[in-house]
């Protein structure tokens, strides 16, 4: 029960932001943090809880983003309907990628490479077909108003991303407390043992990548409506794939709050970099890469793991550890 309480309190506190924060600059930072947390939690569902490391989450993000933009610009579909379409199409791409990889038992680096390849293929496709605006990109016409998913003030966007992130985090909580989650983590930790106990590893992984794709697609939809411009590099380029995995790696993979911690930390680093170096092109990828190396080398369990380690210095944890040692030596 406890994580659910922490989750509710955390999101309630974050929900105070639009009332407490007057400055657009700071509210934008909160919005971008929630957006990164959503992106990271989407990856975490598949990578953290399922152990399937994707290098190509841009495939899902970009599909969500292009779906809402293209359907709006070409077919005049209301972006709120586009939101549903974007999420579902991204989930469909997730299911397709999952089918193509898990069907053939691809794991580890093979799975990672194939996801990367999917994102790249989609990037090249979106660069060549007309309805995405090809290399020029696609611009969503300005039409301020809640009905057109283009809020006049930032608070409107805040509530949308808050709701999306809440849904993703609630899903992560459910994974930690359900049969599906138990089976997913069993597959992550030992696929053969899980199958021997009756876990349908293929089905479980398919469900995870579909959910993951869905939430990644929602992040894409949000991005498109928030910035009103997409091109193939933004939507399907490697930066989104890297950000997706970096957030939970920084925060702590396979933990419910890891992506939130990671998003906040990443946001802070990104702002600091902007202050110090300015907005040089490619700088964010360079910073991401450095962070990734540092985290993997020195803090493989992320900030959440660090928190647990600090908590592990307390007397209760010491007693637990002593008991475990005793049992091992018995």
């Amino acid at each position, binding site marked *: 029960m406890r994580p659910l309480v922490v989750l509710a309190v955390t999101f309630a506190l974050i929900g105070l932001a639009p009332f407490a924060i007057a400055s657009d600059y700071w509210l934008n930072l909160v919005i971008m943090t929630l957006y990164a947390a959503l992106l990271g939690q989407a990856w975490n569902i598949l990578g953290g809880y399922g152990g399937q490391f994707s290098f190509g989450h841009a495939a899902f993000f970009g599909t969500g983003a292009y779906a809402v933009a293209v359907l709006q610009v070409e077919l005049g579909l209301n972006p709120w309907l586009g939101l549903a379409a974007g999420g579902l199409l991204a989930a469909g791409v997730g299911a397709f990628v999952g089918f193509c990889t898990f069907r053939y038992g691809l794991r580890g680096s093979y799975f990672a490479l194939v996801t990367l390849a999917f994102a790249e293929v989609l990037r090249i496709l979106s660069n060549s077909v007309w309805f995405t605006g090809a290399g020029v990109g696609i611009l969503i016409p300005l039409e301020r108003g809640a009905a057109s998913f283009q809020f006049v003030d930032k608070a409107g966007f805040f509530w949308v991303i808050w709701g999306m992130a809440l849904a993703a985090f609630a899903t992560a909580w459910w994974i930690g407390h359900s049969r599906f989650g138990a089976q997913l983590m069993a597959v992550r930790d030992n696929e053969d043992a*899980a199958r021997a106990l009756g876990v349908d590893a293929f089905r479980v992984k398919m469900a995870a990548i579909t959910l993951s794709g869905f939430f990644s697609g929602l992040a894409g939809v949000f991005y498109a409506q928030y910035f009103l411009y997409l091109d193939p590099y933004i939507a399907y380029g490697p930066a989104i794939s890297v950000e997706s995995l970096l957030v939970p790696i920084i925060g702590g993979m396979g933990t419910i709050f890891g992506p939130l911690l990671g998003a906040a930390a990443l946001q802070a680093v990104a702002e600091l970099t902007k202050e110090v170096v300015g907005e040089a092109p490619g700088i964010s990828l360079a910073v991401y890469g450095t962070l990734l190396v540092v985290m993997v080398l020195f803090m493989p369990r992320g900030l959440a793991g660090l928190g647990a380690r600090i908590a592990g210095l307390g007397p209760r944890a010491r007693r637990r550890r002593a008991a475990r040692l005793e*049992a091992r030596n018995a």
Partner: protein
Amino acid sequence: MLELRGLSKRFGGVQAARDVSFTVPAGRISSLIGPNGAGKTTLFALITGFHRPDAGSVVFDGAPIDGLPPEAIARRGMVRTFQIVQPFAGQTVRDNIAVGAHLRIRSRRAALAKAEEVAAAVGLDDRLDMDAAALTVAGRKRLEVARALATEPKLILFDEVLAGLNPSEIRDVLPLIRAIRDRGVTIFLIEHVMQAVMSLSEHTWVLNQGELIAEGAPQEVVRDPHVIEAYLGKGMAARVGGREQAHA
């Protein structure tokens, strides 16, 4: 309960199973013995869907299960344990067992309760919150048994659950295996500890280089010259004179 019909499997140059046929009776403890590399584990993998046989077929509980994946076979009520234990490391003992329990139980709460019940039955109830990776060898073997048991199987295949245990630990586990049988679960086990095979099982099959070379009551099988030869090498059978009990 379980019928093997002409199972064969070749790995490159190794014939790991050669036309193996026999029937495991319901409600009893039966065993499979044979020297290292005889193909025992491979046979378990063939039966439970982890490997596809080159030829032959398997009938479980009255229906053929050829081509079914391991998870479908587990759902029908046959589970295996692993000779090399495969805990979900990083997860607690309770969570490990609950994965098995979830095969028949959707509710998380009920599966965790079932896990505690099974843990008590195998003597792991004092270590429910321990990381499975921190268990002793004996503890991990018990965990393998517990997870399998939690799936409520009709038939359990134990692959050397006693290997690596000291004599006093073995003495503790033997009654546990009998207790499982007494609950109505059929047991088919691979074992190297001959003393255990003798005291547990009524019927045993002997495998050597993928082939069945003998079967019968364990006390008689170990006096069979072919079996002694398989275990100890050529010429030994005559010297031992069929009096010694074979020990792998």
